[in-house]
């Protein structure tokens, strides 16, 4: 390899000499010219050109007798080696990251942990996101799992005793935003004692205001029987009140739009249930069991070419 071809991130041996043996690697002692940041392959090597320049300049001032003695050490110094000892693992960034995390783990393994299940919820980078941030190395999911398990364990260190370097290492591997930090805005009764809820199903959406009362229901200005001809749909609409035995304790005033009859009835289920939870938050688990909490995300499946409908195929005809 010619000098001019040497990648710029290679360093001379005298720096490399400082590398501790792999077995003694308690902490990441690899000195990097740059802090870890996404780098493309050709930049994975640091140049020691400036050091070499200094070296040859100092050579000229040295005495001739020293020259021979220093010749071997010079060779050591000018010989170009990769910056990371993991260079020949083919996944140096990954290996370095893993080693770094494992070193941190070893270093802080005696720190107390949070009680099980109470560690702060964190969304770690997915493998693709991690790869994009770390030079697109070909890392297998199973290997990335090792990083994740180290991160999980480090995250369990009690927050009050969390060392700064661990925090930095954790932050590096978090997603850009933490979805677990998004909390729904708590709803309250308004000054008239009304609770508000929204529900959707298929293409219908419903808004319901629930107030303490005697079981009157008014939807789009019509009563329940006027709104829904089928008894099944009427039951769907007031299902949250029925399963919790609250049918004669609340009044409902609702607006529904879009979709068909069934969609509107089932959109109302969710809307009324949400408003009922504002009145009585403890009913949530019962309502969840009754299927009144989770939005059904199914919509009409699109038609495909060659099919009569979404899945239906035309009848087979003998030529």
């Amino acid at each position, binding site marked *: 390899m010619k000098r001019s071809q040497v990648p710029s991130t290679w360093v001379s041996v005298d720096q490399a000499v400082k590398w501790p043996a792999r077995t003694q690697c308690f902490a990441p002692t690899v000195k990097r010219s740059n802090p870890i940041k996404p780098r493309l392959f050709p930049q994975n090597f640091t140049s020691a050109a400036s050091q070499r320049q200094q070296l040859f300049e100092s050579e000229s001032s040295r005495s001739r007798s020293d020259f021979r003695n220093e010749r071997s050490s010079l060779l050591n110094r000018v010989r170009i080696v990769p910056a990371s000892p993991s260079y020949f693992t083919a996944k140096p960034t990954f290996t370095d990251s893993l080693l770094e995390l494992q070193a941190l783990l070893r270093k802080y393994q005696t720190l107390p942990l949070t009680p099980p299940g109470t560690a702060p919820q964190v969304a770690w980078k997915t493998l693709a996101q991690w790869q994009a941030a770390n030079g697109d190395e070909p890392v297998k999911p199973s290997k990335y799992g090792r990083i994740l398990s180290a991160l999980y364990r480090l995250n369990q260190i009690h927050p009050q005793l969390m060392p700064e370097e661990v925090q930095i290492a954790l932050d590096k591997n978090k997603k850009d935003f933490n979805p677990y930090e998004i909390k729904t805005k708590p709803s309250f009764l308004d000054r008239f004692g009304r609770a508000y809820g929204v529900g959707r199903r298929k293409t219908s959406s419903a808004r319901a205001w629930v107030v303490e009362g005697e079981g*009157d*229901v008014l939807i789009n200005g019509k009563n329940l029987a*006027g709104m829904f001809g089928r*008894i099944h749909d*009427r039951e769907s609409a*007031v299902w949250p009140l029925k399963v919790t035995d609250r*049918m004669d304790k609340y009044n409902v005033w609702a607006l529904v739009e879009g979709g068909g009859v069934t969609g509107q009835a089932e959109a109302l289920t969710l809307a009324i249930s949400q408003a009922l939870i504002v009145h009585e938050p403890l009913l949530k688990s019962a309502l969840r069991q009754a299927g009144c909490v989770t939005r059904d995300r199914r919509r009409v499946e699109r038609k495909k070419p060659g099919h009569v409908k979404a899945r239906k195929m035309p009848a087979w*005809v*003998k030529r």
Partner: protein
Amino acid sequence: MPPLPGPRWALRTSLDAFHSQWLLNSSLAVPAAQKSAFSTTSLLSARAAATAPPPKPRRQENTPVKGVRKTYSVKKARKVSTAKPPGPGERKAMRKRIILSNTNALEVQGLKKLEKEMFAGGKELKELSGKMMGLEDNTIDQLKAVQAFQPRQGWKMFRWPSVLMRKEAVDVGHALQNAENNKTSFRRVLVGDKHSGKSVLMLQAQAMAFLKGWVVIPIPDAQELTVAHTAYAPLPESDPPIYVQKNYTAELLTKISNANQAILSTMVLSQQHKLPIPVQNNISLDRFASLGARDPELAYPFFIALWKELTMPSQEGDGMQRRPVMLALDNLQHVMRPSEYLDPDLNKIHAHDLALVKHFMDHLCGSKPLPNGGAVLAALSESNRLKTKELDYLIKRNEALAAGPLMPEQTMPLWSPFAKMDEKIEASMADVEILRLKGLSREEARSIMEYWALSGLLRQKVTEAFVGEKWTLAGGGNLGEMEKAAVGMRV
């Protein structure tokens, strides 16, 4: 084992080939026209060739053949029904059949019946509020005669026809009592949601009228008057013309005489009327009515005479006594619009120009009084609903007027300035109050559910929660919907 091709076989084929070749080339060869399995004389064959039709052109390939299907299809065997088709009118009879009793239903123990005595004073009527009451035998017969029962009212599910004395029914009972005492007419249009019990309330009113000894004149379905299914003719010397439906009037007289026989038989003709036939002077009114019903040509003059007799003011003491009259009409929307009948200029005749409808409307709006007191009731139908913009507006207007002064956020209903108001309809609704039927109260709902349970139709326990649930599901206590939700078959 087949014989192997040998020299003999080869010789035979070569000989054949030679023979045919020889035949073709030699002058002995037969002409083409004579080539046949048999021989004919040349003369005959020539004649045959001359008279033969020209040879058919050979069908070219790929030309479609007529009558041959390209696709494969299996013809389904036709199902031939061996059942006898229903006779004329049989299907309609099945549809209109009224069943008033079901022996599979349990008999409700301790079910009281509506009696004459309950209507003497207002007190006892009040106590009936919210209770189920059976109907007496006589009353049932009378109600049948006026066609007050309808097939879809659920009578066929129970052992005995009974009615719930809901608040509105009790109110109507009191109003009838007042009308009788004060000799005024109680005029109402019954309005409410579908299956809210308008027609049944009408039935209850008629039942009470029968028990009180009133004369009931029914038009059970106003549609029959306006859909042009019965004969009509202008009344002579009427201007603007009034149209008489003689056959319907005859039927009406039959209904009147059958239903009110008990009370009409106590009254006799008191006046001289202009009638097409001579009539006995002291004929009882039920016989008079049935006499008029016998011939459609006589029906209308007899109906008018009967009405005059019924509305003669009662005399003091032992003099002539007349009872209050109830006029009851169902499906009001059908007579609040132009009818299907045509006049000589082929314009639609307005329903209010039909004699019987006009007669009813004159009494509904109060322009003609009932001197002995009485009631004029008209019910809307939501299941056989016609769009009548005028009537809808007038009902809203009359309700708003009756409700008293408007609240600040309320506005008076207004008729569209771009639409023409039908003056006849407006006049007929000028001064009529609206009786809007809302849902049952919870107590009433509970009472009727207990009746269902006692009849064996409701298997659940009638608890407060159960009643509340059905009450809500029925859109706030709508009786028909509640029956559908609790007793009806789930579809």
